[in-house]
């Protein structure tokens, strides 16, 4: 079954890229044993089909002392015949300040993550751009004080390799 093998190879390549997007086609080929040209084809196909959305670095900005503020905002909305969840979410998501938008269960409808330069910036953005949307009933803002884990990556290291150099 050529199709099955294809899917398996694709998943393996994408898993490796997901962990380290900087691997070259050649390196992925060496790890997987899949021909370099085939790796290239699989990756380019995934890019075309938007299975791979983007390649980015996870940066610990706090470490660099960069001044920035992240807020998590719970948003409750009123739905109308003209505006459903998707419409409202898209409208919020298109602002560049907005990092993530998720439809969630519970008391609120959306969870919106906003990133800005200062507390003032973020507060202004919320009060001017989100709270004022006609569908928004109310918001509940949480400013992030410290991040410990981001995208599955720990932002602290407290473990080292303590193994002996030679073990039979």
């Amino acid at each position: 079954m050529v199709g099955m093998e294809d899917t398996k190879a694709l998943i393996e390549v994408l898993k490796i890229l997901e962990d380290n997007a900087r691997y070259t086609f050649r390196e992925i080929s060496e790890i997987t044993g899949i021909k370099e040209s085939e790796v290239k084809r699989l990756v380019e196909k995934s890019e075309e089909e938007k299975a791979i959305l983007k390649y980015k670095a996870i940066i610990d900005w706090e470490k660099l002392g960069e001044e920035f503020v992240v807020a998590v905002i719970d948003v409750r909305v009123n739905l109308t015949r003209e505006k459903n969840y998707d419409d409202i979410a898209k409208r919020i998501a298109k602002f560049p300040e907005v990092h993530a938008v998720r439809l969630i269960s519970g008391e609120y409808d959306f969870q919106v993550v906003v990133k800005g330069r200062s507390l003032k910036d973020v507060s202004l953005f919320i009060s001017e751009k989100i709270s004022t949307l006609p569908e928004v009933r109310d918001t509940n803002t949480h400013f992030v004080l410290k991040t410990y884990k981001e995208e599955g990556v720990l932002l602290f290291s407290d473990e080292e390799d303590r193994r002996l150099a030679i073990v039979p």
Partner: protein
Amino acid sequence: MRENADRIRINRKLLEIKPSGIRKFFDLILGREDVISLGVGEPDFPTPWRIREEMIYSLEKGITSYTSNYGIEELRAEISRYYEKFGFSPHPDNVVITAGVSEGFDLALRAVINPGDFVLIPDPCYVSYSPLSILCGARVVSIPTPPEFRLNYELIMEYSRIIEPKVLILNYPANPTGVSYSKKELEEIADAVVENDMIVISDEIYSELSYKFPHRSFASLEGMEDRTIVLNGFSKSFAMTGMRVGYVIAPQDLLDAVLKIHQYSMLCAPVTSQIGAIEALRNGEDELETMKSEYLRRRNFFVRKIGEYLETRKPEGAFYAFPSIRETGMSSEEFAEKLLMEKNVAVVPGNAFGESGEGFIRCAYAVSMDKLREAAERIIEFVSEL
């Protein structure tokens, strides 16, 4: 005071045991910087957090006492269920929890060996098999397995032609060669076991790290359950080496014998580790699969890369590659020492695992992909410059 110059303070059997060949290497590495070690026969992953967290919680609750000699009941039940994946399901009563396979191996030998009994051991093999057999008073018969490193019916029959061996030691997937056996191969070995009326001590510690075919326990083969002492543990599969927790699975009479020694020597395996082991079997499957697929990637990468320069068989399991260095004209020790001095890469000379390991080096690929790549490049550089 009586004076007796001839009196030997040390157990005479210990004089028959050669000091470990690895020790010397260990000293060479000390003090060197930037060494990438492919000499480490244990996972580079720390114990999965959920397992550690469960052990921490048990300590908070004050669970610090002895357990039953057999080990915690729930753990024995989990192991009984778990072993189904390797082809047979032992009754929980046939399981004893030990302080790792190392203890289990010692118990198994002492349970069955009378002084003078013959023990068949494949060569090369893990470093403790022969010394512990000698300590029991066994006569060790090493079966050289190169170049395939596979035991088979003919080899076993050839080496038992003029003796009556009592025990056969098996280890698959194997340290240091990475060799494992298909069901058919195991069945042929089982034929030789029956013909020689032997007991098998089957060290299956790398059972989870079998890449070519699913691991089959030796006890799962027809007629073998009653002849086999299965040894396994959590060190390699769940990255719990320092926790020292493993188990013995054996038929009733052998298990009783094993327990008799265990209860007077070890008493019980560390309780915290046993609790971690329960969590490992109940909820550790995902972490295990993640580690396994990472080892598989590294194996493929390393063998392909090194294989162009040194003849290397594709290991079917464990996390070791065992390349031949014969073409370099050097001995295993020379090669390993020079490689360390010139390129700062540590490997273990094959002869540390028995005479038949001469001409080979053991490379453990339980290091991160980046380090493995760097190590492979340094080895290739070293070989190319010869």
